[in-house]
C-alpha cells in the first residue's frame, strides 16, 4: 500500500452559531485505503465531509490533495479535484436510465450536438466491468434495487474521475446481502488505487472493512487507530465516551397487565422494502420499554404501524385489549393510545396553529371542545391556559403560534396534549431530540411519572443515555428485527454491539 496521503485535512474547524461542528479535525487518507469515519449522530462527520465536498467553507484549516493545498468552494471544484461523494440519500433521477444518470452534465457527444447514447452506455459498461459494479446501463433507475442504485452513485463519481470516494452511511439503506456485495466492491475499488472514506456508526462494518478508523465525538477527533486489532467494545467506548448518565429518580417499576401487544408484525415502506420483519413484544402497564437502535432500522415504521399511520402487511397490534390492526389513526387513538411523534415540527404540531388549537388536535371534534360540529374556541383557550401552566410551557400564551416556540416548549405542548388524553399506552419517539438539558429533564421526569400512573410506555430513542436511564426493559432493534432484550443494568458497550449487528451473531 502506498503510504503517501492523497488527501489531508489539516485542522479543519467549522463553527455554526452556538456550536463548533468541527473542532480542529485533522485526517489523512492514503492511496488505496479505506478510512472509516466513526461517530454518533451529530458528531460532526457529515459536516467534515460537506467541507471536503465544497458544500461548506471551513473557518480554519486547509485541504491538501496529493500534497497540494486546494480551495474547494463548490461541488464542481470538488469533482474537479477528484473527490466524489455518494450521498446517503441518492442524487439519482428515477425516470432516467442508469447511463443517463451517470453521464449527466458530462455527456459524450456525436455529430456535434447529439448525445451519444451508445458511447455513454459502453463507457458505463466498461467502468462497471472494471470495478465489478454490475448494473445495466439501459435500466431505469426507478426499476433497480437500492443496492444497484448505490452502485450507480459510485459509478457516477468514478465516471467523473474521482480518486477519493466518500461513502456517507452507505449500508444504512442496504440489506445485509447487499452490504456484503458493497464490501466486495469497495475492495475492488481500493485494489485499483481508489481511496475511500467510509462514514458509519455500525461498528461491525468498520471492523470488517476499514484499514484505519477515525473516531469523532462532538466535533472533536478522539483517535485515529488502525482497523486491525480494533474491537467493537473498544470502538463503542471511544464513540460514546464516558459520560455522566442523566440521573432520573425512578422508583422500581411495578408492571401490571399487558396494555400493548405486538405479534409478528411485518411492515413494508412505500418503496416495498420490508422495514419491520416479524416483531413481537409487549408493554405492560407501569413499565417503560425502551427500543434502542441505530436510526433507520425500522423503528419509525414500527411506531407508524402501531399508531395506524402505516398499514402493517401482517401481524397484530392490540392496544388496551382492543385489536386495532389495520385500523385508522383515529381508532388507534380512541383505543387509548398517546403518541409523541418523532418529528414534532412536521407531525406533532400544526406550526401555524395556535397552542390552544394544537392542544385540541385529537379531540377538537368531541365535547367539551366542540358540540355537533360547533367549535368553542374559548374552551380551547381555557384548557390551554391550564395545560400550559401544568406543563410549564414558557414563551407563549394559548394564542401564540406553535411555530414561534422553542423546541423544548413545543415538545412540552405535545406532551401535554398526549398525556391530557389519559392514554393507556404512550409511545414516546425521540422525545428529547434537539432539546436543551432543562427540557430533557422535564420530559424524562414526566415520562417516569406517567409510568407510575400505570401507563404502558414505549420509548424509542437513538440516545443510549436516555434508553438506559429511563427503561425498565430494553429491546434492541436492528434491521427490522428485535435482536435482543436487556435489563437496565446493561452497559452501553453491550448495547452498542447489539445495535450495530454484533448481537445478531450471538443470537444466531
Amino acid at each position, binding site marked *: 500500500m502506498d503510504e503517501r496521503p492523497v488527501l489531508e485535512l489539516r485542522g479543519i474547524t467549522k463553527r455554526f*452559531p452556538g456550536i463548533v461542528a468541527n473542532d480542529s479535525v485533522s485526517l489523512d487518507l492514503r492511496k488505496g485505503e479505506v478510512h472509516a469515519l466513526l461517530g454518533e449522530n451529530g458528531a460532526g462527520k457529515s459536516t467534515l465531509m460537506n467541507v471536503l465536498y465544497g458544500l461548506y467553507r471551513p473557518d480554519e484549516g486547509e485541504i491538501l490533495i496529493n500534497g497540494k493545498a486546494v480551495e474547494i468552494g463548490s461541488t464542481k471544484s470538488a469533482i474537479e479535484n477528484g473527490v466524489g461523494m455518494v450521498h446517503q440519500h441518492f442524487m439519482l433521477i428515477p425516470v432516467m436510465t442508469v447511463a443517463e444518470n451517470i453521464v449527466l452534465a458530462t455527456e459524450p457527444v456525436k455529430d456535434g450536438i447529439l448525445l451519444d447514447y451508445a458511447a455513454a452506455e459502453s463507457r458505463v459498461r466498461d467502468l462497471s466491468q472494471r470495478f465489478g459494479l454490475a448494473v445495466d446501463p439501459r435500466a431505469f433507475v426507478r426499476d433497480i434495487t437500492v443496492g444497484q442504485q448505490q452502485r450507480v452513485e459510485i459509478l457516477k463519481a468514478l465516471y467523473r474521475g474521482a480518486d477519493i470516494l466518500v461513502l456517507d452511511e452507505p449500508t444504512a439503506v442496504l440489506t445485509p446481502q447487499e452490504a456484503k456485495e458493497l464490501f466486495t466492491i469497495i475492495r475492488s475499488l481500493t485494489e485499483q488505487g481508489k481511496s475511500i472514506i467510509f462514514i458509519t456508526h455500525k461498528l461491525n462494518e468498520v471492523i470488517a472493512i476499514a484499514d484505519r478508523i477515525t473516531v469523532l465525538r462532538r466535533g472533536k477527533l478522539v483517535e485515529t487507530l488502525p482497523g486491525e486489532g480494533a474491537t467493537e467494545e473498544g470502538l463503542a467506548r471511544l464513540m460514546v465516551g464516558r459520560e455522566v448518565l442523566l440521573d432520573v429518580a425512578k422508583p422500581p417499576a411495578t408492571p401490571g397487565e399487558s396494555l400493548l401487544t405486538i405479534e409478528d408484525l411485518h411492515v413494508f415502506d412505500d418503496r416495498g422494502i420490508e422495514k419491520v420483519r416479524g416483531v413481537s413484544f409487549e408493554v405492560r402497564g407501569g413499565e417503560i420499554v425502551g427500543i434502542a437502535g441505530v436510526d433507520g432500522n425500522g423503528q419509525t415504521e414500527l411506531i407508524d404501524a402501531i399508531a395506524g*399511520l402505516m398499514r402493517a402487511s401482517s401481524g397484530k397490534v392490540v392496544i388496551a385489549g382492543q385489536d386495532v390492526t389495520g385500523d385508522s389513526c383515529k381508532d388507534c*387513538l380512541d383505543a387509548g393510545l398517546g403518541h409523541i*411523534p418523532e418529528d414534532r*415540527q412536521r407531525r406533532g404540531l400544526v*406550526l*401555524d396553529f395556535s397552542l390552544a388549537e394544537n392542544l385540541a*388536535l385529537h379531540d377538537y371534534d368531541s365535547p367539551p371542545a366542540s358540540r355537533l*360540529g360547533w367549535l368553542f374556541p374559548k374552551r380551547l383557550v381555557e384548557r390551554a391556559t391550564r395545560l400550559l401552566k401544568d406543563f410549564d410551557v414558557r414563551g407563549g400564551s394559548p394564542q401564540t403560534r406553535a411555530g414561534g416556540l422553542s423546541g423544548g416548549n413545543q415538545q412540552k405542548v405535545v406532551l401535554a396534549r398526549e398525556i391530557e388524553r389519559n392514554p393507556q399506552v404512550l409511545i414516546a419517539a425521540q422525545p428529547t431530540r434537539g432539546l436543551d438539558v432543562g427540557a430533557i429533564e422535564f420530559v424524562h421526569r414526566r415520562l417516569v411519572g406517567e409510568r407510575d400512573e400505570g401507563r404502558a410506555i414505549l420509548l424509542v430513542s437513538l440516545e443510549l443515555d436516555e434508553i438506559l436511564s429511563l427503561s425498565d426493559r430494553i429491546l434492541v432493534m436492528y434491521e427490522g428485527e428485535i435482536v435482543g432484550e436487556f435489563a437496565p443494568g446493561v452497559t452501553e458497550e453491550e448495547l452498542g454491539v447489539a445495535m450495530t449487528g454484533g448481537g445478531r451473531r450471538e443470537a444466531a
Partner: protein
Amino acid sequence: MSTPEDNKPGNGEEVESPSTDPDYAPSVAAKIDVWSKAGGLFVPLLTTLLAFFIGGLVVLVTTGKNPITTYQEIFKGAGLNWFFHVGSYEATLPFSDTKVWFPWNTGSVPDDQVSFLAGLNLQQTLIIWIPLVLTGLAVAFAFRCGMFNIGGQGQYLVGAIMAVWVGSSLPGLPSALHIIVAAAAGALVGAAYAGIAGLLKALVGTHEVISTIMLNWIAIWTGVFLFGLGGPLQNSNPGGESVPVSNDILDESKLKVFWGEPLLQGLHLGFLIAISGLVVYWITLNRTTLGYEVRAVGFSPEAARYGGISVARNYFLAMAISGTFAGLAGAVDILGWQFRINTNDVLTTSIGFVGIAVALLGRNTAIGVGLAGLLFAALVTGTSTRNLDPEIFRPELASNLTLLIQGLVVLFVGADVIILSLFNLRKRRRQAPTVPRVESTDV
C-alpha cells in the same frame, strides 16, 4: 437557546426536495398565512400602490394624460366619493315606508346632484362587489385547505346557468321560494362542479389547478352550447331564434332592489347574501370543527393525518364549499341584475378570475376579501363605458388598465410572500443566528 431543530424547514419556507417528500413542502395556505400575520395590512397596501403607480406610468407614457386625474375620475365613476358627502339625509328602510336619519344621501334628495349621482355609481360598484366577494371567498376557502381553486370561473358559470334555467322555469312558485330554489340550485351545482376537482385530488391526487382549468373551459363551452343558436336553453322569445341568449328569468325569481331604482339597476338583495357569505366564511373557518380540519390540512397535511383528520375528505369538502360560494356568485348575478345570459357573456366574463386576485390581495381573510373586492369592483365600475367620462380618459382604454392593474397586483402579491420572508430572514439572521442543519439528511 437555539438548537438545530429550530432551523428545520416546514415553516413558511419551501423545501427543495422534489421526489422524496411531497407533503413536507408547506402548502400555499401555510405560506400565505405566515405572510398575512407578518405583513398585516402594510404589504397589500404597498402592493396595490405599486400596481397603481405602474398603471399610472402607463397612462402617462401612452396618452400623456395626468394619471392622478384619471384615477380621480375612476374613483368618482365608481361612486366612492359618495362616502365623502356626509350630511343630514333621510333614508327609507328597505321594504317599508319608515324613514330614518342617515348621514349619506341614499337618493331621497335627488336635487343634491353630486351625491345622488355618486350614489347611483356606488350602486353599480356594489353590484359588482357581490360576485367578486363570493368568488373571492371561493378561492380563499380552497386556499385555506392548501388548494388553489383556479376554477372559480367555471363554478360561477355553472351556477349562473343553473340559476337562469331554474329562474326562467317553474312559473307559479311563490317569489321567495323561487329565489331560494334558484340560488340554492346554482350553489349546489357549483359545489358539485368544484367537487369533481376535489374528488379527483382526494382519490387519485390529480392536481386541482389542472382539473379546474379544464372544468372552466368545459363550463364555458357548455354554456355557449346551451344558449347558442339552436341550443337546448336558447330563448323562446318570438323572433329570438337568431339571438344566442337565454330566456329571461321570471319576475318572481328576481332579487329585490333595496337601494336605487330597479329600472336603473339598483342594488339588490344579493348584497346581503355577499355579506352573509363573508360571515359564514369566517364562522365556518373559525368556529366549526370543519373549519378546524380544513385549516389543519391546509397548514400541514401530515400533522392533520397524525391528528386523526382525514385529509382526502377535507380536500373534497373544501373544494365543494369553495364551489358553493362561486356557484352562488353566478346565481346571484343572474337573479340580481343580469336576469339572462348570452353566449358572449359566457365567453368573456372574468368574474371568477378576478376572484383569484381578490382572494390573494385579501389574504384569504373575510375582511380582506371584502376590502379587496371593493377595490376591484370600483376599478371595474369606474372604468366602464357608462361611468367614465370619455373626455377624461377613454373607457375602453381604462378597462384594460384595470386588467393591467389586476395583473400587477396578482404578480406582486404572489411575490411579496417571498420578499417578506427574505426580509424576515435577514432580520432573523442579524438578531439571532441559528444553526444550519449539520447532518446531510435534509434531502
